[in-house]
């Protein structure tokens, strides 16, 4: 079964989800070709085990993100099952490639079986959908849901120059307010809710995050209440859906929308002074305590690791 993977890049390198895409393709019996938009990460892609060939897709249009132009330039190179990451960019490009090629599309798969049987969370994880789709089709996968293969490959790299007209002009790029790790990328997340009392108290969360290399997240209540807490920190149904190895919820009661965004985390620790808070219902380890008492101790214990 032919599979075409559109590589996900970050800066001038491949994003780890690219190797996971190869793993997902191989797990359902696919033989993947990896296309690198803008020629980014081609040599790295050629070393991913299981990759049949790598195409360096070069063209002026890849200098700016315009999903329509990218889809126009990439679509002629696609065969069989077209796959991307279910990142914002991945979904947008894939939806347009599917429309151009008139093939069915399933986004954000967390499980794939040959057939092709696709499993994906719906209602932000409040339910799971299983559906069946046949090649040719388009499937995006969720980051960290599939294993990466090894890196002992050595596939050929060919270059294709295929640009398309750009309709989007970037007038100004505004850097993130902080260089901190993004909650969507982190393996450990420590999140604060309105129970933190004041946005300045998030400094305690940042101190702990720095010790263990975690990202700091927030509940919707915290983001909506305090201007200092930006929306890109929000975990939950109208924020980011995350699945880190460890999620620490501090002063978060556990509204259904928040639980939907973080319940698939591998381990969940909840710190809340209210023993009846719904967050304890999903926590592997619950600590009934105020954050004022628990966080200094948590910082000390993490410091000893």
């Amino acid at each position, binding site marked *: 079964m032919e599979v075409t993977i559109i590589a996900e890049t*970050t800066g001038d390198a491949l994003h780890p989800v690219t190797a996971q895409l190869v793993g997902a393709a191989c797990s359902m019996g696919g033989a993947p070709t990896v296309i690198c938009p803008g020629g980014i990460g081609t040599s790295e892609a050629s070393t991913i085990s299981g990759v049949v060939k790598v195409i360096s897709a070069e063209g002026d249009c890849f200098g700016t*993100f*315009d*999903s*329509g132009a990218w889809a126009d330039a990439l679509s002629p190179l696609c065969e069989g099952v077209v796959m991307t990451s279910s990142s*914002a960019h991945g979904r*947008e490009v894939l*939806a*347009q490639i*599917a*429309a151009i090629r*008139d*093939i069915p*599309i*399933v*986004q*954000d798969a967390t499980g794939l079986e040959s057939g092709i049987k696709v499993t994906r*969370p*719906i*209602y*932000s994880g*409040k*339910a*799971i*959908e*299983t559906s*069946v*789709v*046949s090649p040719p089709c388009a499937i995006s996968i969720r980051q960290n849901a599939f294993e990466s293969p090894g890196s002992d490959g050595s596939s050929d790299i060919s270059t294709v120059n295929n640009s398309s007209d750009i*309709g*989007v002009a*970037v*007038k100004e*790029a*505004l*850097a*993130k307010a902080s260089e901190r790790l993004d909650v969507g990328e982190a393996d450990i997340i420590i999140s604060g809710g309105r129970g933190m009392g004041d946005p300045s108290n998030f400094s305690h969360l940042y101190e702990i995050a720095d010790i*263990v290399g975690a990202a700091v997240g927030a509940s919707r209540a915290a983001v909506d209440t305090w201007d200092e807490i930006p929306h890109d920190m929000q975990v939950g149904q*109208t*924020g980011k*859906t995350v699945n880190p*190895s460890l999620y620490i919820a501090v002063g978060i009661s556990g509204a259904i*929308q928040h639980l*939907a965004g973080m*319940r698939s985390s*591998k*381990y969940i620790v909840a710190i809340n002074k209210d023993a009846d808070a719904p967050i*304890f219902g*999903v926590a*592997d*380890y*619950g*600590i*009934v*305590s*105020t954050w004022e008492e*628990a966080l200094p*101790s*948590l910082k000390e214990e993490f410091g000893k*690791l």
Partner: protein
Amino acid sequence: MTIAVLLKQVPDTTAKITVSGGRVDESAVGKWSMSPYDEYALEYALQLKESGGGDLVAITCGPARASKMLTDAAAVGADSLVHVVSDDSGIDSSNTQSLLASAVQRIGAEVVLCGKQAADTNAGSTGPGVASILGFTCVGMVSEVSAEGGGFVAMRTSPSGNEKVSVSKPCLFTFDKAATEMRRPNVRGIMMAKKKAVETLTPADLGVTIDSPRVTLESHSAPAEKPPGQKFEGAESVPTVVSKLRDEANVI
């Protein structure tokens, strides 16, 4: 200028989702609402109309119950309401895109706004797919948009932060959480909306043939239940929990 906003009615985000007989039980949904990201799209569509004039048409594709949501859109200022009646269970994403694209074409809109994804299916295919079918430029993950010199300026999320981009008509914007929440209707708006006609269209009216879905739904299921966790009293338990994270869970 005609502005189109694509809206979807979904179970309210506070609603509990139950599964019975391998399907999400829609009859158990207590409250249906406009999908949250679509609310942002509607707010900015209203702002575009207010700043540059034009007709704002709210379009939905969905079963009969979705009509109420269009009335909600009229209550905050949508001028015309178009309901493409379809049975959600019998169509896939490609079908929905074709129907909405035809509806946009029918009203002659040159700018389309919608949410980045619906709160039920969480897919995010509709907006970009509609843009592709229509040949409109697609700008995703937008948090603000305004008219400027015959075109538009939008703020969008990028992997490294935010980008201010400019784009010409015809174009489509998909909204992430935006800078401004959707306005609330006033009493006059609510009263006027009740009298507003909803134009109901079938796929045949739009000249779209609905083939059998190419994505076949096999089943819905409830998410795997987690085994009950361990609960500890007081901050003095923190060292115990940290050692469990290290030795039991192996995550730190």
